[in-house]
């Protein structure tokens, strides 16, 4: 059994990303076909050759039956073989081979390795051809009546001679692929005159005993005479009639005997028979070992991962050194205190310097203003002093005032005889205008005499 990973895959109708690829679908189909079909089997039908045959010698044809069902058939290097046997399109044939999928086109095809005309037994004698035709007529060779082999056989009935070469081959091939099989040997001669009867008895004995999952009738290669007992009609009928699924593996690859047509599966050698009957066990065991390993590995991985994460967490400093949480806080507290304490004087200092600055500005402004006022005052005083009429008197000038104390500015304002008072730096003089002298229109002078 193949792991059914594709069939198991979760897909969602809403999410196209969960899709299968085309080749996945094709290989899944191939897998399904290989799972349920025997490795190789005979198929019966009418051979229809395709009109155009490749020059490679491969035979491309179809097998078809009365119902119209049709399966493409390919037989590599088969042209020569069917020409030799004079098989033509339209002949009813047995084809031996297996089903496969031609991946490029996803077409099921039958890959044949042997083709025989129905009734034509190749190496068999005319007598055997008649016997086979009779058996076929009775439907004993009909693929539809072939019993399926058990997937997981435990007890394998074996009909052979303990001295036959095939016996050992079969046993050890089985055991190399599946442990703990039980073999139930019904010994029988596999060549000679008594062989058919002994084989019939052994097969019936095993079939009646009923505790085998399948029966394998086998012997190794030998001459045609040695294998002749397997062409016995009674033996063939016995094999066709067993209740237990029965496999025949007689001789070597080229040998075909009557029993091969009526058994449920015909293997080309004893070794091949062993491989076929243990195939499912072998694959199942492989899958089981694979899953068991992966199961443990996945779990171990998850545990390791979680443990690693846990350890990372546990390794955190606060968990390994819890006291550090407290000491950390202490340090932070002390730090804060320190900052607080140093912050206060600092603030006071800032305020103080601002205050000083303001005070300084105030003082400066005030002094400047005072100075300016002083300067202005001095200027005004000077101006005032300049304007003081007494200043003029100090410099030796005098002012003439009439009786009404008006200053005389022009000579015409003081006609002769006018009484005037002259203000001097110290004291006054009483004067009377004597006469007036005219120098020019604009420049008159008066002559004064003291009273």
């Amino acid at each position, binding site marked *: 059994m193949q792991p059914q990973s594709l069939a*198991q895959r979760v897909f969602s109708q809403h999410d196209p990303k969960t899709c299968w690829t085309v080749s996945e679908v094709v290989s899944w189909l191939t897998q399904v076909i290989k799972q349920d079909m025997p490795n190789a089997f005979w198929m019966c039908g009418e051979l229809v050759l395709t009109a155009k045959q490749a020059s490679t010698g491969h035979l491309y044809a179809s097998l078809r039956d009365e119902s119209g069902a049709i399966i493409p058939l390919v037989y590599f290097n088969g042209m020569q073989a069917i020409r030799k046997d004079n098989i033509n399109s339209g002949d009813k044939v047995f084809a031996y081979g297996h089903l496969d999928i031609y991946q490029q086109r996803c077409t099921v095809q039958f890959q044949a390795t042997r083709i025989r005309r129905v009734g034509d037994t190749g190496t068999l004698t005319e007598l055997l051809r008649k016997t086979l035709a009779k058996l076929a007529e009775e439907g004993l060779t009909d693929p539809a009546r072939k019993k399926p082999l058990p997937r997981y056989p435990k007890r394998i009935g074996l009909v052979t001679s*303990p001295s036959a070469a095939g016996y050992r081959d079969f046993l050890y091939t089985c055991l190399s692929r599946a442990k703990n099989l039980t*073999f139930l*040997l019904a010994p029988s001669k596999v060549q000679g005159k008594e062989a058919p009867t002994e084989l019939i008895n052994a097969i019936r004995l095993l079939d009646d005993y009923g505790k085998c999952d399948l029966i394998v009738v086998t012997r190794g290669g030998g001459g045609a005479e040695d294998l002749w007992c397997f062409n016995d009609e009674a033996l063939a009928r016995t094999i066709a009639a067993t209740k237990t699924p029965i496999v025949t593996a007689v001789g070597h690859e080229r040998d075909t005997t009557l029993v091969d047509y009526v058994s449920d599966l015909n293997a080309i050698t004893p070794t091949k028979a062993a491989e076929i009957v243990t195939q499912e066990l072998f694959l*199942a065991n492989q899958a*089981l070992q694979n*899953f068991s390993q*992966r199961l443990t590995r996945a*779990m171990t991985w998850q545990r390791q991962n979680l443990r690693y994460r846990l350890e990372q967490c546990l390794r955190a400093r606060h968990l390994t050194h819890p006291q550090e949480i407290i000491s950390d806080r202490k340090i932070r507290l002390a730090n804060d205190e320190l900052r607080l304490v140093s912050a206060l004087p600092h603030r006071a200092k800032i305020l103080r310097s601002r205050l000083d600055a303001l005070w300084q500005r105030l003082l400066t402004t005030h002094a400047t203003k005072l100075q300016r006022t002083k300067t202005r005052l001095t200027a005004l005083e000077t101006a005032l002093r300049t304007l003081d009429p007494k200043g003029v008197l100090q410099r030796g000038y005098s002012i003439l005032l009439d009786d009404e104390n008006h200053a005389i500015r022009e000579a015409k304002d003081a006609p002769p005889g006018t009484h005037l008072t002259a203000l001097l730096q110290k004291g006054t003089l009483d004067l009377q205008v004597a006469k007036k002298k005219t120098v020019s229109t604009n420049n008159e002078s008066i002559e004064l005499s003291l009273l």
Partner: protein
Amino acid sequence: MPEEKLTFDDALVQLETIVQQLENGNLPLEESMKAFERGVELGKFCNEKLTSAEKKIEMLTRQPDGTANVQEIPFPVDQQ
């Protein structure tokens, strides 16, 4: 676990599903522990199914009175 009704193939498919779930690594620990235990059980079950037969050869013969006789015989010498 209703193992009596479980076929070998079903068990194998279940086991594979569990393995895939575990490998995806999305399951919480508790669930993966459960899945793991289930996986181990399934593996054991499958293994038992595969190996429940003993490895031996018996010879079946008919006795003179017509009854079947089964007796264990040794393995032939493996010449390979």
